[in-house]
């Protein structure tokens, strides 16, 4: 990829982020908060200390993985927004597998298997029945939510606190990279997953076929590629990423190492991942960067709430504005025209 091709999408994401931050400031001001104070508290919390940086990276971990789900499917021409539900089953599988085997590898394997399995219904509905994946994956997210809630409150419930699940046994947890922080080896797993996704898409024959059929189904058929198979693979590999996101989150995030009440600690990652992927231009390497950026927002949200009194959901407003801005086509050209009108 040469520099010029890379610059434009990168700049568009930067512009979108800028718009998000600016509009966010306006929303803050209108809601009676000081935008400067709020953003300062946010940056302070996310980057101002070793603990904050660790929190940023650990918050980036699951959403990088769910971002990969969206990106891999988007590269195949599919809008898979089913990461949310897949995360739940990845987390559940990790708890169940580690309860049985007390080994971190088994936990990760559980996340992978359940993630792949839960992606299949939408894949088959798409390929064999033509059901649009946006509808099927959203419905499956809700089915997953209630199904997972049943398992959390039932089979996997903690006998001492029935609102949450049993914890991952200590021997099966992912170790911390930095002591007394939230940063576990899960972050490294997410980065490796991104690198592998990049490798898959651009350095394997399978990934080549997936991208070809995503760009142009007719030409891919001419090239001997089976677009249906490409779509199924994109769902399965994407599902693995989200399954891992759930597994890594419960196996690597102190202190509880369990699914908490109402599944609050594994909720929302699927949707955050869509934003991460879009801002990362659906590119695994871009996702590493945008994942860390979104992780920063998440990590700083708490200190923004404590220090500036701004509800922590504010960061989701900023995220949402960024994604809407990313959807505007030719953002870079628009801005260039706006500022470059006098020239030439």
């Amino acid at each position, binding site marked *: 990829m040469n520099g010029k091709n890379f610059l434009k999408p990168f700049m568009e994401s930067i512009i979108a982020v800028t718009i998000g931050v600016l509009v966010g400031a306006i929303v803050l001001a209108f809601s009676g908060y000081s935008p400067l104070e709020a953003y300062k508290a946010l940056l302070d919390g996310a980057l101002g200390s070793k603990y904050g940086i660790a929190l940023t990276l650990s918050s980036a971990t699951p959403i990088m993985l769910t971002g990969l789900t969206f990106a891999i499917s988007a590269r195949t021409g599919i809008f898979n927004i089913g990461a949310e539900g897949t995360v739940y089953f990845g987390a559940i599988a990790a708890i169940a597998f580690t309860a049985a085997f007390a080994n971190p590898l088994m936990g990760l394997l559980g996340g992978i298997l359940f993630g792949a399995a839960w992606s299949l219904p939408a894949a088959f509905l798409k390929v064999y029945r033509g059901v649009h994946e*946006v*509808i099927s994956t959203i*419905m*499956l997210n809700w089915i997953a939510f209630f199904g997972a809630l049943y398992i959390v*409150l039932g089979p996997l419930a903690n006998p001492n606190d029935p609102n949450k699940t049993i914890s991952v046994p200590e021997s099966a947890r992912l170790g911390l990279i930095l002591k007394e922080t939230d940063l576990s080896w899960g972050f490294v797993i997410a980065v490796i997953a991104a690198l592998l996704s990049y490798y898959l898409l651009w350095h394997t024959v399978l990934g080549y076929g997936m991208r070809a059929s995503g760009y142009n189904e007719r030409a891919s058929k001419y090239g001997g590629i089976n677009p249906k198979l490409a779509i199924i693979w994109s769902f399965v590999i994407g599902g693995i990423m989200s399954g891992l996101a759930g597994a890594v989150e419960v196996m690597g995030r102190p202190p509880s190492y369990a699914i908490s009440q109402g599944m609050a600690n594994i909720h929302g990652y699927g949707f955050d991942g869509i934003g991460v992927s879009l801002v990362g231009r659906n590119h695994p390497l871009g996702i590493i960067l945008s994942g860390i950026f979104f992780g920063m927002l998440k990590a700083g949200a708490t200190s923004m709430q404590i220090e500036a009194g701004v509800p922590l959901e504010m960061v989701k407003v900023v995220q*949402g504005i960024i994604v*809407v801005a*990313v959807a*505007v086509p030719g953002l870079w050209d628009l801005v260039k025209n706006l500022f470059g009108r006098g020239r030439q």
Partner: protein
Amino acid sequence: MNALDMVIFNLMGALTAMVPLVLTSVGAAVSERAGVVNIGYEGILLMSAFFGAIFAEMGGNAWIGMLGGAFIGMLFGMLHGAITVYLKGDHIIPGIGINLLALGVVAFGITAVWGTAGQHQVAIKMAKWYTPYGPVSPMIFITILITLVTHWVLFKTPLGLRIRSVGENPEAADALGINVEKYRFWATVYGSLLAGLGGAYLSVDWLGTVTKDISSGRGFIALANMVFSGWNPINALFGGFLFGFFDNLSIWVRTNPSVQNIVPWQFVATLPYIVTIVIVAGVIGKVRPPKADGKPYKRE
């Protein structure tokens, strides 16, 4: 409660639950008949539920809340229309953006406005008729009326003919001097406006509360209903009643202890979503979307 009462009770409940689904489906049908796909209705429902409640409480009147919700829907319809129709952007991504934005705005807004976390009891209530089988909202009749009028306009008037023509074959419409962009844009706005009305109904009328996940996938169920009904408003009314029945049933069972002992409530709660998938999978191939649905139109 005897069996017959229970049936009537649930059918009445279905009428109540169908309102947001039908409004959104009818709006989506108009938008897609004109060729614009919008998957942001979920977010529009959510935001209109939130802002509708604010409007209602500020104006001291439930109807002001309903209009406020419709207004918010309209604004987001304009945003979506500007991106898809005039800037020729992708039709799916702006919808995803609006849905994500809604998640943030509502969660943030509930705390910022009312100082509560995640939930607010709306102070203003819609006046309803109270029957032994539960309350009946005037919005049920308004929804039916809107559906019938929309259906009539879509299939009997020049406006409807033109809307349908730009979604089926924009080249043909353009060749006859019809402004494709104008019709597409306003059809999109109308669709979102109806969804906004449905959103305000959730908080100000039916549920009487604002929560950060009050839309609960209804925006997408409404899209499924639109497909199921073949992009036809009157069919969407009946489809909405069917989907509403399962929506209401799952809520009713959840709060009914005698059933809870037999089936876990979570399984019942998945019912509307499973029904949606099954119906859409079954009906596809038998219905046909507008030919230029979701395709940006640029003249040669």
